[in-house]
């Protein structure tokens, strides 16, 4: 099992760990509500080093990358980041990927639901593409939250305020280049820092100091499942791992359907032509109602779907989830029953149900 270069530091903070597909991640540091509020109200620092990381030279690796991933890698402009995915030949999702055009190379960050070693083998199997696997000698540290921009600004300067969502820029830290991805899946401001292991401890400490100044702190990877669901960002470890079909998951925006080839293309196009039979929809139940993954959802006496993922929203004081529903009832604004025809009420809702605090901040006016 691969472990993070930051493990000892995280352990000293009281972190507990769990395994995800051959990689160890932090499952909890503080209590869940505290971690949640770090991100929603201030800034949360998260060790995302579980992601697989690759450098791909444009000259030798562009075609390889473009025929591997569902999105159009060739059209990524300099300094921008594409959010797309890797699927298998059956068109089922294997990894959620950020691909950054970093001048004469691409940098790929992947969160996968297949074994770590397998993903790394897929990306490096074609020697002529010249892909370098930098997973073991780099860390990825996330800074997410309403005040995340403040932490990053203190470190790299006011220039970062002009970075658009899904972009990449290089900054210096302790004499070493750090790649800053303006990205994130919480619906608050988000940044991911790709840095060599040699400066990982020092960078992590600097980010933690910055977060402390705004009353933020260190978060687990697990809290991000809740934050993603509440913000209706795709979570490969949640609904992604259960459903796997990118069309049913609503990930069509990550696909270039006009591309002549990418891994899983034929299977995905065949399912698209056939039409969807079911669809992922947001659901909500009042606090106290037992809403759990795997529960059946009933419309009258007919079972119309199942709950795929669940979280508690401290903002809304309600339980939220995603359900896979039959296509003819996959609409928000409806009421169904859980477990049986007369079971507790669950409502389908429009996502995202929260208005993030970050939406009230205009960085270009700071």
């Amino acid at each position, binding site marked *: 099992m691969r472990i993070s270069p930051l493990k000892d530091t995280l352990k000293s903070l009281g972190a507990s760990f769990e395994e995800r597909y051959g990689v160890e991640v932090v499952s909890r540091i503080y209590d869940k509500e505290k971690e949640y509020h770090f991100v929603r109200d201030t800034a949360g620092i998260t060790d995302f080093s579980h992601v697989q990381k690759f450098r791909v030279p444009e000259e030798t690796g562009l075609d390889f990358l473009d025929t591997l991933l569902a999105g159009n890698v060739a059209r990524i402009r300099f300094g921008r980041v594409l*959010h797309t995915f890797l699927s298998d030949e059956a068109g089922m999702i294997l990894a959620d990927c950020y691909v950054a055009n970093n001048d004469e190379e691409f940098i790929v960050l992947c969160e996968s639901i297949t074994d770590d070693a397998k993903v790394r083998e897929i990306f490096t199997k074609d020697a002529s593409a010249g892909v370098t696997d930098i997973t073991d000698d780099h860390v990825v540290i996330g800074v997410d939250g309403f005040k995340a921009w403040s932490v990053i600004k203190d470190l790299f300067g006011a220039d970062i305020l002009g970075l658009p*969502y*899904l972009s990449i820029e290089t900054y210096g830290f302790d004499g070493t280049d750090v790649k800053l991805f303006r990205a994130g*899946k919480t619906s608050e401001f988000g940044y991911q820092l790709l840095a060599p292991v040699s400066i990982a401890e020092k960078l992590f400490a600097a980010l933690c100091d910055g977060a402390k100044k705004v009353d933020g702190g260190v978060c687990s990877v697990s809290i991000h499942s809740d934050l993603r669901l509440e913000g*209706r*960002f795709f979570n490969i470890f949640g609904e992604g791992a259960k459903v796997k079909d990118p069309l049913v998951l*609503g990930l*069509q*925006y990550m696909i*270039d*359907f*006009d591309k002549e080839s990418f891994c899983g293309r034929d299977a995905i196009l065949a399912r*698209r032509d056939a*039409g*969807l039979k079911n*669809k*992922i*929809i*947001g659901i909500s139940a009042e606090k106290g109602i037992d809403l759990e993954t795997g529960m059946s959802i009933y*419309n*009258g006496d007919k079972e119309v779907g199942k709950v795929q993922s669940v979280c508690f929203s401290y903002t809304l004081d309600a339980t939220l989830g995603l359900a896979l529903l039959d296509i*003819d*009832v996959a*609409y*928000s*604004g*409806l*009421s169904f029953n859980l477990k049986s025809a007369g079971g507790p009420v669950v409502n389908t809702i*429009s*996502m*995202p149900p929260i*208005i993030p605090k970050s*939406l009230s901040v205009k960085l270009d006016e700071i």
Partner: protein
Amino acid sequence: MGENIQQVIDKRSAVIKKFKEELIRRLNLPYTPDDLHEDVSLLGSGLGLDSLDALEIVLCIENCFGIKIPDQNTSILRSINTIVDYVLQEQAKKG
């Protein structure tokens, strides 16, 4: 299926269909209406539309439904579903 549920679906799906078709046409999006999940984020992540596109979306809502989006209230534009909620709410007010 209960009549009430079907009525809600019919009303909602008509607004969704009209809005998606107009959105795709105006922004020249490379998708069919079925490709656009109603919860996908419109601005920033998801479809990745920018502030100019946001203006087009506002005009799209005005043209399709005769409903104005209040200035500065970009939170309505979070997703197709949040827009449809607003349209249905304003249509209900008008009776």
